[in-house]
């Protein structure tokens, strides 16, 4: 279990200023739409505020990233619950102002990533967006490095299959 930082608890305001955008960018890899991604990160900071702004972590950024992963997971779970209650909301469609992102192949890849199981999506985000070492991904996801490699390998294989022979 993490031990509290003895002398200098993380400054939430500074963490927010330094990492908010990057955390939203991480979250958007997991929940797809930027609005939900921002909500996820906001809730992380709200929870930390509710705890008086102090939390226990050897590495505050890693702690925040883990919290974002958990928040995104909750968001996806909540969506699953909502789908049980209601008809599904139409998927997020990229707006015209994201035209730079709207390259056909990237859209296909992102749509394919969205079809992956949550764990594989998380591995993709941590490995290929944050470009973290396998060991750190494993630590963040509380799984073994082998499981990280397996998840990434299976994910890439799935993407390759989904995307067809363009990359095969």
């Amino acid at each position: 279990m993490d031990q509290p930082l003895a002398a200098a608890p993380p400054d939430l305001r500074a963490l927010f200023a330094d990492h908010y955008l990057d955390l939203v960018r991480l979250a958007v890899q997991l929940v797809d739409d930027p609005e939900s991604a921002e909500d996820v990160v906001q809730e992380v900071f709200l929870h930390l505020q509710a705890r008086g702004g102090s939390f226990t972590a050897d590495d505050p950024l890693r702690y925040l990233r883990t919290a974002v992963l958990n928040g995104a997971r909750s968001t996806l779970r909540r969506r699953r619950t909502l789908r049980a209650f209601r008809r599904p909301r139409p998927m997020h469609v990229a707006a015209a102002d994201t035209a730079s992102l709207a390259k056909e192949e990237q859209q296909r890849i992102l749509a394919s990533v969205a079809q992956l199981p949550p764990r594989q999506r998380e591995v993709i985000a941590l490995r290929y967006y944050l470009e973290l070492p396998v060991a750190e991904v494993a630590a963040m996801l509380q799984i073994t490095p082998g499981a990280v490699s397996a998840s990434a390998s299976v994910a890439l294989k799935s993407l390759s299959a989904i995307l067809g022979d363009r990359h095969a």
Partner: protein
Amino acid sequence: MPDNIDPIEPDPRLRPDGDGLPDPRIEQAVRSAVRARADSVTSASLHRPTYSERRNSGVRPILLTAAAVAAVGGLVIGITLATHRGAEQATAPLNTTATAAAESSRTDSKQPVSPITKSTSPISTAPVDRPPGPISASPVGIHWILAEVNGPKGSTTVRPSIDASLELMSSGVAVLSDGINDMNGRYELTGGQLSFPGNVTSTGAGYAGTDKGQLAAVSAVGTIVSKSQFTLSISGTVMTMAGKGFVLIFHNGGPLGSLNTDASTSTTSAKQSSDGPASSSVDLSSITASQPGLEQVEGVHWVLDSFTAGGGTTDTRAFPAASFEISSSLIGWDYTCGGGTFHYSAVGTTVRIGASAGMPPHTCSQVPAGQGPRAISAMFDATAFTVSASGATLTVTAPAQTLIFHKDGVARLYWVNN
């Protein structure tokens, strides 16, 4: 690729023939795609790019839309502390007819809704406290989408994308959403008067934004479930609810989906069949108490705070969180990387674990890591345990340990679609 990035190794269990190394072209394509998506989020595109303390909510409102207020003997209603502030801020005057109709046509609505027929509901001139008249059709079995909030200080359109809604089941249970949190509770509908005499459970998400429509929705839905009485009136596809200084306008969003238990509502059944197969088959009773002795426990997401074993108490309020939920037929535990669901039987407050009902969808193959997951895993290894709820705290007494949980909103039903 940075130098410190070690390559993904193939998993020999998956590729016994040894080939199948990740295609570097796929890796590069994925890397480019996720980077492009990340780059599409910029500082300018953020809605809430600045940090504000909770105590400054008067400047930048931070709503806690579901403060879990404990009440012995029942589940709890948790509704915003700042709803009236939200209502006061949600006072932008607008052309209700044009704006609401325009909003109704937005493509992000769950399904097509008819434009508001304003002539049937002259809300712009009616005093907000005057009931709009008796109910003329049944509101039960319909997904009602909140479209407009008229309060003492003005009128605010609620965009369909906010997804604030009201559903009244014939079973007597209502499901509401203010776009931030979901709530459910028992309602009474007598002579066009709608009220929630009992407790309402709610998820506990916060909203830190300033969207007037969202704030109005939070305020309105909070008022609906705050033991107020509202008078309903339905005209065409519009339902008007009036009470406690508010007139709320809902659109008919179509019949309820698979959760609808209104077999007697012929129009609903017919519409459902024309909509094709239901997306899921969840029984709403799974989130309502039905097991005698477990009324306070069912339908709640319980998060493990600590456990006592061997004379020592261990605080488990750290990642990964461990939690459990119980419905009228299933019990499940959950942690970051897995969990399990089981059938169960209960005698009073003693729960006996039965056959496995599967794993939550987000499981991975790893054993539980952390004190919390290990403790809750051991709890489910016991054949039986007793539960005792008091307000927002639940005590589980198992043969080798005692576990303390706190309520964290309504059950996530993570076995749904399992």
